[in-house]
């Protein structure tokens, strides 16, 4: 066991830090600037990713021949840490970089890699993930959106829902049914679909936070060339599963840094908030709760380091990613609740209230955290996965 970084890892960090010092935007406040529309905000993030790409820092974990740097998992962690340390904005094409690009690298034809990968890195084309449907969420394999062969094309009909970035996306990794007669896992195919194709309709879907980060997407007789099948026809379940594994393993990757920063901010506020005539930070109950959150954020970081070390030896994320997914999502809910308790009545104030701390960030985070145990596979599904695939218990369904 050696948690020190190697000379090579340190060198990587230094180079990146130097690059960020010169290139990270100075006007980024950590969230969408007031008065900017969602589209303007997104254009800003896209411009930032383009700069990162030009600097050679986008998709660093991808193999060199695919435009990456072949970075190790540990270098990826360093990357997230340094981005956070530099208070750099997030990259616009998150799903493309973390989930869909790697899936294309694993299953795509040479022509597909040539066509899509660079544009994912440069944020020239934004991607979304069209998996969930109104009647197929946890039971994803029961999805109904169908693709019927028609000459050398497929004709797609159906509906997707909860599609994050649907409104911004140029392309979509779409899971469809190509063989309705086969058992449910066997009749699926993944298509790479141009969101501008005739027959694709994206409708806003407002979330409980008030924003519309995700969408409903309707497909009516959308024509997709067979060249856009990712992997083999009717092998879509395996392709999609690869994406989901990446989702569980990577979605939480840099989060401990995000939580950690938010925690520092909360501690700072706790010193100035009055609780029974003294600063909240001196209240024994508050101290207990804050210390518990600190400990859990730290453990989340350490779990992450352990799993990264394991992946760096075994090569691929495994079902234990489910432990991470449960940990970060449930921790965030506990954290946001503690923040509400510590901040008192001011915590409920939303964006736009002149009395709110941090422009309503805490009320927003409290609500946003509620989605954490649902997105990327619910906590129940993650526990099923651990029960069956890690502990070897019989399947419940």
């Amino acid at each position, binding site marked *: *066991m*050696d*948690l*020190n*970084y*190697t000379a090579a*890892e340190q060198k990587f960090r230094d180079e990146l830090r130097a690059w960020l010092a010169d290139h990270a935007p100075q006007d980024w406040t950590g969230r969408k600037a007031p008065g900017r529309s969602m589209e303007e905000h997104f254009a800003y993030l896209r411009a930032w990713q383009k700069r990162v790409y030009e600097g050679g820092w986008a998709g660093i974990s991808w193999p060199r021949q695919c435009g990456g740097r072949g970075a190790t998992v*540990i270098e990826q962690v360093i990357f997230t840490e340094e981005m956070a340390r530099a208070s750099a904005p997030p990259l616009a094409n998150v799903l493309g970089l973390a989930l869909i690009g790697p899936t294309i690298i694993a299953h795509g034809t040479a022509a597909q890699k040539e066509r899509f990968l660079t544009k994912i890195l440069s944020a020239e084309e934004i991607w979304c993930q069209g998996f969930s449907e109104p009647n197929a969420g946890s039971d994803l394999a029961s999805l109904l959106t169908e693709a019927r062969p028609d000459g050398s094309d497929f004709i797609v009909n159906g509906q997707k829902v909860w599609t994050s970035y649907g409104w911004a996306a140029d392309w979509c990794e779409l899971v469809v049914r190509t063989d309705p007669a086969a058992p449910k896992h066997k009749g699926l195919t993944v298509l790479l679909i141009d969101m501008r194709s005739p027959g694709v309709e994206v409708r806003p879907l407002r979330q409980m936070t008030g924003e519309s980060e995700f969408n409903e997407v309707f497909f009516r007789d959308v024509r997709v060339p067979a060249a856009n099948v990712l992997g083999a026809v009717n092998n879509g379940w395996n392709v999609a599963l690869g994406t989901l594994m990446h989702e569980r393993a990577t979605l939480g990757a840099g989060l401990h840094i995000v939580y950690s920063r938010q925690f520092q901010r909360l*501690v700072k506020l*706790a010193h100035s908030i009055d609780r029974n005539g003294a600063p909240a*930070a001196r209240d*024994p109950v508050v*101290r*207990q709760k*804050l*210390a*518990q959150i*600190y*400990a*859990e954020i*730290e*453990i989340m970081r*350490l*779990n992450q*380091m*352990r799993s*990264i*070390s*394991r992946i*760096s*030896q075994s090569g691929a994320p495994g079902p*234990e990613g489910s*432990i991470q997914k*449960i*940990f970060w999502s449930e921790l965030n809910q506990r954290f946001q609740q503690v923040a509400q308790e510590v901040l008192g009545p001011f915590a409920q104030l939303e964006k736009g209230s002149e009395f709110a701390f941090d422009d309503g960030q805490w009320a927003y985070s409290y609500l946003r955290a509620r989605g954490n145990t649902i997105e990327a596979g619910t906590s*129940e599904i*993650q*526990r*099923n996965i*651990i*029960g*069956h695939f*890690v*502990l*070897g*218990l*019989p*399947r*419940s369904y």
Partner: protein
Amino acid sequence: MQFGLTETQQLLKNSARDFFPAECPMAEVRRIMEIDGAYDVMLWRLLAEHGWTGMIFDEEHGGMGLGLVEMAVAAEEMGRILLPGPYFSTVFLAGALLNALPKNTGRNACATAICEGRERATVALLEESARWDTGGVRMQVVDGRLTGRKLFVPDASAAECLLAIVRAGDELAITQVHNAASGVSIRAMPSIDRTRHLYAVDFDQVEVEILATGDEAQRALDRAMDIATVALAAEMVGGMERITEIAVDYAKTRKQFGKPIGQFQAIQHQCADMLLLTESSRSAAYYAAWALQENAPDARTAVSVAKSYASEAYREAGNRAIQVHGGMGFTWENDLHLYYRRAKASEIAFGDAAFHRERIARMVIDA
């Protein structure tokens, strides 16, 4: 950066995994726990012969000079089998304190005797206030003699060497007493963990040797308590891992409603949570061991993160393991209660979760 065992650490783990269940199976644990001090001479001889008593001591005393990650590896394996008796207090607690003290004749002799398996040792810290910090230490050494009462002294009846934490005037002092010295009387405090016994120790004008005083004593004690706390957290991980295995195995074989109970999600999810608690406790314990070994700036916080988390996790894992077993889990015959009892005693030892959270608060909120 590599957060995993090295090859030699893995070898140590494998040899511990071979040794402990073979030499001290559960039937032996049950037999030994009925002996005063849960001290079995034969088992102790084996522990010494295989080098376990010397693992963290310097080679000059006959030890192996292993590091704290290695200590955590061994402690974890001992926790899996509920190793009974005075090993923990002798090596991981008193041993850590002896290691942290300046070399002198009394200290060196005790360290050597432990390595060679001739003596056992323990630390007497708590008094009536039952505080884990030295703020509760009142007992005075006056003219080289001790009078007063120490409580919750682990394994005292088996320990030849007692390290009593006392005061010399206002200063903290670490003293060494032989338990056969005149004026020492030891009474059992029958308690929840049957595998490790607690004692009240009365001192009446007992002659002692002072090993350290003042800042030197405080520093040595802080270091030793941190090390013992990490060893305990690692030991707790071993216990959690074992009861998770026991519960998962049971869930695969016990049938109700015509199917294994492990097919019911209510049971599966309890098992999944046990795994999450175990793995998270493990990450924290190993990090703390490494941080202490490397004297990392956040080492003390890491110790408290590990202990506060493990304190609640082991108990929670125990709750789930017993629940999965139904009525069988509530019987004396089933081994789970032995772990459940150990979990409670370990939760309390060296400060419970609330104690360590307050320590974290001092380091991260007040800093």
